[in-house]
């Protein structure tokens, strides 16, 4: 991998605010999302879901439903392949329940019919014989040794102690002597926290269209963050060969991690196989809330010791996460992220995951980190209040930097936390006056960012323009960013490059659009593919000029002799070389395939001003500023958009969003009315401040930016409420009844 840094270079395209290629389609209603495709002969699918939180499925009788005119196929878990891979089995069992319905809304059977009305009518005719079982939805309850067991036999070898079988994993991180550290502290604070499960809340419900023929070939069109992973899952669950299943990603109406797995796609394929017709399956919003991934809910204890001048002497966190009815390891990410912002001599985090009768957790923007960092940043803030110190000073005093032994093991490379904290301190927001009942909160945030498997094909068209084929759904403007990086490297205008997202048959495997990886990893592969094409173009030119290929260099979109010794030739532009491609050896293309690493971790610091109504407990966010080390910002608008969007989601999480269950394990708020994502009038303008500290792992210094911004808002808001209302809450969301109760009990 070429690690040539371009940080000092003058970029021509990178850093500009070009127009996105999908813009006109999206503002005119022409863009095709998951539910928008229509094909001849298409049937409509619908899914029957469990009315119980936990129940044994004794029998499913579909005979009456099948007899309804217009019903073409009904499938259950028995229509899936017999699986021995545990991971695939979990995905399959989540798509259609096998022996037990594990949560309220768990899919049990599905119908394909001539139209939606018939499909809906057929669902009512399917008879499922259930034996209801005791259930558990709270993480602490689920860990108790006598808790109802959601799934037995899923405990990893690392779990010790007197817990129920719901506890599937344990992890521990850290270094140093905690006891000695706490002994050095002038004050130690220990608090317990809870955070509710929140949903990614993408506006587009899951949707797909499957068409499978009797010879085993299939096409699947769906909204997903990763068509290749969908292929892997569906081929496995259906018992197909990957080559026979072509998956095309539609435009995607938001994902935030929630569209990194399958919920309905294998079901639609099974229905299509059985019916011999294409089947479209679209979730309702109610189904999205009941049966797709929210993030984990958490319970945690944090203990931190500090000297009176603000130095943290020791830090400990115990994190307990539940990720629904199937095992997940999200808590490990939380346990590694919790103290990542700090340079600590003694730190320890422990994490447990527990099964509950809730939907299977799916990734949500920096999965596992926000709830851990919320608890830590709350206690750090309470300590700064205790000593009367400046919250940013304290964070700077303890900030991790290059060479810091991180709380999760490795020693940090160059990181941007100190610069980010300093930028926050200097910003006018930090010194702006506050009024009565107003308070300002601060929080740091951290996320790892990933690279991963990536393929890019870059074709030089014969008119001198460039086509790029990549394999990651564009979720926030990545087609534009990828075209920009190719244009930069090739030295041609952005407008001459068009990037498309390939189906699974057109390009090799690409990891899911997750981990803030696309601009980093696909960008890196694009630059390398461009370099590959440049090398080929230079060698064609060398043949034309009859000189050594090494004597031809590429500069500003032209091949040139490397110096006077190479010969005296007029430079040849990309267009001129492209026009001669047929004569010089055929089409010219660049390729790059890589499992990219070196994404570089990212830090953010957020400032939040709130006003709390002391008579009602209502919180109004008055001002919000997000600072983040973005590495080189390829398209600053899209970097800002990620920071603003993540902040808004975090604000919702802090104030109102939550999964609410009743005593019977029923989800009470499966809709946008009572699952309250922020609306436009709930938010102030969110000011993004980008810091560009180049990532040494990327040729242009690019860093992942998508996820970090959801991490700081939880504590930033809680810390602000604490200062505005004089009461500190230890639970999210900080809904008005909770805040008012805290104010009232304070007296």
């Amino acid at each position, binding site marked *: 991998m070429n690690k040539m840094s371009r940080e000092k270079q003058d970029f021509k395209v990178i850093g500009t605010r070009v127009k996105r290629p999908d813009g006109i389609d999206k503002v005119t209603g022409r863009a095709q999302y998951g539910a928008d495709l229509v094909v001849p002969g298409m049937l409509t699918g619908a899914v029957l879901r469990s009315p119980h939180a936990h129940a044994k499925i004794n029998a499913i009788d579909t005979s009456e439903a099948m007899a309804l005119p217009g019903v073409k196929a009904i499938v259950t878990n028995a229509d899936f392949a017999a699986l021995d891979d545990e991971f695939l089995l979990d995905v399959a069992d989540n798509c259609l329940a096998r022996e037990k319905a594990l949560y309220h809304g768990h899919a049990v059977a599905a119908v394909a019919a001539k139209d939606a009305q018939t499909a809906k009518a057929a669902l009512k005719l399917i008879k499922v014989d259930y034996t209801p079982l005791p259930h558990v939805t709270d993480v602490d309850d689920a860990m108790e040794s006598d808790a109802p067991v959601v799934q037995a036999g899923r405990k*990893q*070898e*690392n779990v010790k102690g007197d817990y129920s079988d719901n506890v599937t994993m*344990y*992890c*521990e*991180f*850290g*270094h140093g002597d905690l006891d000695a550290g706490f002994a050095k502290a002038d004050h130690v604070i220990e608090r317990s926290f809870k955070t509710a499960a929140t949903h*990614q809340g993408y506006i587009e419900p899951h949707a797909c269209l499957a068409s499978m023929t009797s010879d085993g070939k299939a096409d699947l069109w769906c909204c997903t963050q990763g068509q290749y992973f969908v292929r892997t899952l569906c081929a496995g669950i259906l018992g197909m060969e990957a080559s026979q299943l072509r998956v095309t990603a539609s435009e995607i109406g938001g994902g*935030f*991690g*929630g569209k*990194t797995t399958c919920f309905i796609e294998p079901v639609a394929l099974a229905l299509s196989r059985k019916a011999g017709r294409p089947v479209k399956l679209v979730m309702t919003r109610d189904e999205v809330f009941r049966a797709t991934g929210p993030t984990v809910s958490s319970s945690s204890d944090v203990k931190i010791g500090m000297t009176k001048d603000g130095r943290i002497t020791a830090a400990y966190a115990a994190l307990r996460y539940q990720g629904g009815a199937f095992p997940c*390891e999200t808590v*490990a*990410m939380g346990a*590694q992220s919790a103290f990542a912002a700090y340079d600590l001599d003694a730190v*320890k985090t*422990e994490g447990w995951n527990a099964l509950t009768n809730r939907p299977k957790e799916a*990734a*949500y*923007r*920096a*999965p596992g980190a926000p709830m851990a960092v919320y608890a830590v940043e709350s206690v750090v803030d309470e300590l700064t209040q205790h000593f009367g110190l400046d919250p940013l000073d304290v964070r700077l005093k303890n900030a991790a930097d290059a060479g810091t032994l991180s709380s*999760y*093991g*490795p*020693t*940090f*490379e160059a990181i941007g936390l100190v610069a980010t904290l300093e930028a926050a301190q200097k910003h006018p927001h930090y010194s702006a006056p506050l009024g009565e009942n107003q308070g300002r909160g601060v929080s740091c945030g951290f*996320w*790892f*960012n*990933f*690279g*991963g498997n990536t393929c890019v094909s870059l074709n030089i068209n014969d008119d001198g323009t460039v086509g790029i084929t990549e394999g990651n759904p564009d979720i926030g403007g990545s087609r534009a960013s990828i075209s920009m990086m190719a244009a930069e490297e090739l030295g041609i205008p952005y407008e001459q490059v068009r990037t498309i997202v390939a189906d699974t048959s057109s390009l090799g495997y690409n990891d899911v659009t*997750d*981990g*803030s*990886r696309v601009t980093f990893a696909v960008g890196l592969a694009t630059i390398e593919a461009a370099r590959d094409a440049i090398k080929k173009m230079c060698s064609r030119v060398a043949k034309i000029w009859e000189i050594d290929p090494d004597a031809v260099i590429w500069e500003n979109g032209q091949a040139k002799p490397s110096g006077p010794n190479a010969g005296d030739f007029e430079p040849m532009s990309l267009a001129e070389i492209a026009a001669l491609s047929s004569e010089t050896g055929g089409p010219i293309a660049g390729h790059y395939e890589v*499992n990219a*690493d*070196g*994404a*570089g*971790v990212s830090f953010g610091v957020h400032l939040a001003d709130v006003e709390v109504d002391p008579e009602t407990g209502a919180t109004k966010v008055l001002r919000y500023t997000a600072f983040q080390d973005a590495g080189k910002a390829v398209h600053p608008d899209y970097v800002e958009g990620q920071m603003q969007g993540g902040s808004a989601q975090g604000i919702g999480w802090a104030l109102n969003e939550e999964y609410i269950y009743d005593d019977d394990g029923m989800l009470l708020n499966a809709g946008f009315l009572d699952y309250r994502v922020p609306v436009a009038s709930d938010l102030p303008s969110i000011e993004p401040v980008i810091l560009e500290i180049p990532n040494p*792992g990327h040729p242009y210094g690019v860093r992942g930016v*998508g*996820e970090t911004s959801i991490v700081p808002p939880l504590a930033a808001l809680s810390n602000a409420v604490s200062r505005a209302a004089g009461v500190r809450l230890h639970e999210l969301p900080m809904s008005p009844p909770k805040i008012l109760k805290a104010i009232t009990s304070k007296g």
Partner: protein
Amino acid sequence: MVQVKLWGNLRDATDGQDVVEVEAGNFKQLLDRLSEKYPGLKPQIERGVSLALDGRIYREAWFTEIQPDSEVVLMPYMKGG
């Protein structure tokens, strides 16, 4: 020999050691040797691990070279949103 730093609960598989030494020139060799020397680590390695080499995190990448003085940290397999 390469020194490999483990995360806390893996100590159970290494007689309480946080740092173990194996002979390895790249990640594949390192993981193979770790599984041989400490069979208790095998279930976790099979579930998936990441490796941090001098502060940079790698998710797969068997053939990444390791120098004897490199800082090598075993981490759980990472995923994002």
